[in-house]
């Protein structure tokens, strides 16, 4: 699983990468995940439906991330734009 964050001037940046079945790597992923949520990021998991269509789901905790997810993408929270 890869944790990615989109950033101005960068595109996506890899925050952490590891196998969730390996306890040490899972702990690192969990730590990075929490750090991003605490920084106010939204976490999205790209998924594919049974029909093959691509979708996404917002997750609010590491436990909500599907075990087979390859990526979690963090992006800044939405805010009302130009008034």
């Amino acid at each position: 699983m890869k944790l990615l964050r989109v950033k101005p001037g960068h595109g996506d940046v890899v925050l952490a990468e590891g196998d969730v079945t390996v306890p040490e790597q899972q702990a690192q992923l969990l730590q990075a995940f929490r750090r991003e949520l605490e920084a106010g990021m939204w976490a999205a998991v790209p998924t594919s439906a049974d029909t093959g269509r691509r979708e996404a789901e917002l997750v609010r905790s590491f436990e909500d991330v599907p075990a087979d997810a390859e990526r979690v993408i963090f992006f800044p929270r939405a805010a009302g734009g130009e008034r």
Partner: protein
Amino acid sequence: MALALTTAAIVLVALLWVLALPHLWHSLLPKLKLVPSRLLASSRVQLGASPAPLADLDPGRELRAEQRARALLRSCINEEEWAMYSELGFLRIWGALPERPAGARRDLIRLRRRARAPRAPRIEELVATPYAYLIYPNRPILAYVPHTGVVLGEYCIEFPDHTRPYGSSRLPDADDVLAKWVALTTEERALIEQANMHLPGRQIGLEDARRDILRLSCWERERLQSKGRTVPRAGSVPAR
């Protein structure tokens, strides 16, 4: 004498090139979808057309970031949606709220008054007509009714990164589109409630919006003809 004339000609060409460059930049580059809007905005800053300066702007870095963002977007959305974005420069998402976004009722009433049918459609019937959003990079989301082409409103929403790694809080274009796509397809209501809603034409000109709606319907028709199959609703992951 010949040398002097040649030198004068070279100087003249160089001067004309310098004068013409900003105009070429603005007339040609917006047509290339690979150029991030931030770069275009920065060139407007140089021309004095926009008062908002951007600190520490590196065009090469911005282009690389945009390329990465496009690769990420492409890996997340459907093939149909990617084709739409890369060819038209925006993405269409179908709305899924049982009621239209706020502000739409006024447009529905106006539509009903304009209806030329023997029996004007009732509001309930018009409400049942599907609506959709056009997602533009780093511009408001546009809500409209595909059936009639009526633009319902603009929803201004941003995803500001307050860490401002290079002085700007704005995401690369394709990342902004991806964030809007994720948010609209997962939490449409929350996103729309959070956005600043404006009447049509505030930031995206009505003519531009109508042209894009027309371009989209032509694009879909062409794809339908070229593939000889039913085009699924492009942007077909409905908002939730």
